[in-house]
C-alpha cells in the first residue's frame, strides 16, 4: 500500500517526531516501498491461526504485591535534563 504525504504527516504526529515539509515525500516513498514488500504476507492463509505475542508461552508469572523499590529519588532525577526541588521540570502545560 502506498502512503501519501498526509498519512506520513499523521503518523509522524502520532509518533511525536517533527518532520520538515521536505522530508514527507522521500519518507512516503521509503515507507511505501517497505510496506509493499511486507504485503507478501497476504499470500499466507492465517484464518484460525492464533496470534503469537512472544516465545515464552502461557501467562506471565505473578509475584506478591509488595513494594520492591524506592527511596532513590536522587538517582532517578540524576539523568534528567531539567529538575527543580526534587521534581522533573517540563514546559508549562496548563495556561
Amino acid at each position, binding site marked *: 500500500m502506498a502512503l501519501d504525504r498526509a498519512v506520513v504527516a499523521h503518523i509522524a504526529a502520532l509518533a511525536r517526531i517533527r518532520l520538515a515539509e521536505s522530508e514527507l515525500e522521500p519518507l512516503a516513498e521509503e*515507507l511505501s*516501498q517497505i510496506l509493499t514488500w511486507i*504485503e507478501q504476507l497476504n499470500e499466507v492463509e492465517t484464518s484460525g491461526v492464533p496470534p503469537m505475542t512472544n516465545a515464552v508461552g502461557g501467562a506471565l508469572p505473578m509475584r506478591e504485591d509488595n513494594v520492591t523499590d524506592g527511596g532513590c529519588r536522587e*538517582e532517578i532525577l540524576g539523568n534528567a535534563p531539567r529538575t527543580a526541588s526534587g521534581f522533573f521540570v517540563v514546559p508549562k*502545560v496548563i495556561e
Partner: protein
Amino acid sequence: MSEGSLLRLTLADARDGLLRKSFSARELALAYNEAVAETKPLNAYITPTPERALEMAAAADERLARGEALPLDGIPIAVKDLYCTKGVLTTAASHILNGFCPSYESTVTSRLWQAGAVMLGKTNLDEFAMGSSNTTSYYGPVENPWGRQIESQSGDNRPLVPGGSSGGSAAAVAAHAALTATGTDTGGSIRQPASFCGIVGLKPTYGRCSRWGVVAYASSLDHPGPMTRTVRDAAIMLRAMAGHDPRDSTSAPVSVPDFEAALTGNIRGLRVGIPREYRVDGMPQDIEALWQQGAEWLRAAGAEPVEINLPMTKYALPAYYIIAPAEASSNLARYDGVRFGLRIEGSGFEDMYELTRAAGFGAEVRRRVLIGTYVLSAGYYDAYYLKAQRVRTLVMRDFASTFEKVDCILAPTAPSAAFAIGENTEDPVAMYLNDVFTVPANLAGIPAISVPTGLSADGLPLGLQIMGRAFDEETVLSVAGVLEEAAQFRYLPSFRAGALHD
C-alpha cells in the same frame, strides 16, 4: 608472554593461564587496554574504560592469589553499549540518550562482574540495535578488521562493514581488542556480525539471559548473548550470563547447565536438518558450497543430515519487519526529553517532544518508529500487526514439527560475506534481506549459533549456523564444536592488535 601472544589466547586458555599464574589479570588487562587504543581506527568502542579494567583486574588478582578464583576472574570483556552499566555512559549509539549514565547495572553484566570478569569498555552498535551493518550509529560506522584479499572487479577497496547490530563487539573480538564480548540479537544482530568478522556468536533461547537493564528494541525478540573466538568460550560465557531473573518477567525459571561439559565431540546418531527453503535465489556459490561442506563434516562425525522443509521461511522476514518496528515504536515512546537524555526546548510540551525526538533519532530509527506506529494505528492493526503475529505462530509451528524429526538445523548464517560501508543503503529492504536466515530463530525464540567455517572467494570469513530446540543450547554447542573442529578456521584479520609484535 609477549603482548601479541597474550592477545591470541582464547578465554579458556586465558582462564587456565591465570589459574596457573603464567601471567596476571593486570598484565592481561594492560595488554587489552593497549589493544583497544591500538585498534581505535576501527571505531569499535564508543567508551573505553581502561581505569575500570585495571581496578577490576587488581581485584581479580587478589582473589587468584588467595586461591579463591571466580569462573571468569581476570577475563577482559567488551560490553555492547546497549547494556546499562552503572556509572558508565550508556548510549545505545543514539543521540537521544546523550549523556545518559545509568544508576544501575544490567542483570547480565552484573553476573559477569560477579564472576570476576574485567570491563574493557562499551562497544559501538547500530542505533538502538536497528541495523545489519553498524552504519546507523550516531557515533559513526565501525570498520571490519578484515579487508578483501583481492580487489573486487570494480576495484572497490572501501572498508567493509562488520555487520550489525553488534558490530563493535564483533570487530573488537576479531581484532583482538577484546577477549570476548556481549551482544544482543533481535533479528540476527549477534550471528550476522559474528559471521562477517570470523568469530563465534551465540543467540541463546529466549528467556535464557535476562533482558533487565538492556535498552529495549523489540522486547519479544531481543536476546542477550555472547560473542567469542571459540565455541568453548561461548559455552563458558553463556553459563556466566544465563539464569533466572525475577526482574524480567520473560526470564525462564530453568537451571543453568555446565554448557562446557556438553562439548564432548560426540554427535553420533544426531539428525541434522538441512532446510530446502534456505537455498535462496542469488546466494553466492561459495556459501552454498560451504553449507554442503558443513553437512559433510557433520556426516563424517557420525551425524545424519536430513533434508527438511520450513515453508514459512520466506515470510519470517516481512513478519519481523512488522513485529519489531511495532514493539520499537512502543518501547521508544519513553524518549521524551523529560527524564533522561537529550532535550530540545520548544514553545510548549508537544513542541519539546517532537523537536527532541526529531533531533535524537537517526534515519533508520525514525523509519522503524514510523512503520511501527502505522501498523499499530487504528484501521491497520488487524491487517498488519495481527497478521504478522499469526504468521509468527506458523513459523513457530514449522520449527516445532521439524524438531520432532531432527535434533538441530544447519544453515548459512547470512546470504553474503561482509559488504562495503555505504553499500545496501539506497533501498532499506536490501539491507533487511541480510537477516533472512537469522530472523526465523528470533521469531521462534530458539537457540542458534554462528561458527566461522570458511572464506569467501574474496578471502572474507563466512559462518554456518546451527539452530536447536528451545533450551537445548547443549546440542547446539556440541554440534557447533564439531563444525569448528572440522573447519579448522585459523585465519586472522590483517588489521588486529598485537600483529606487529607477533
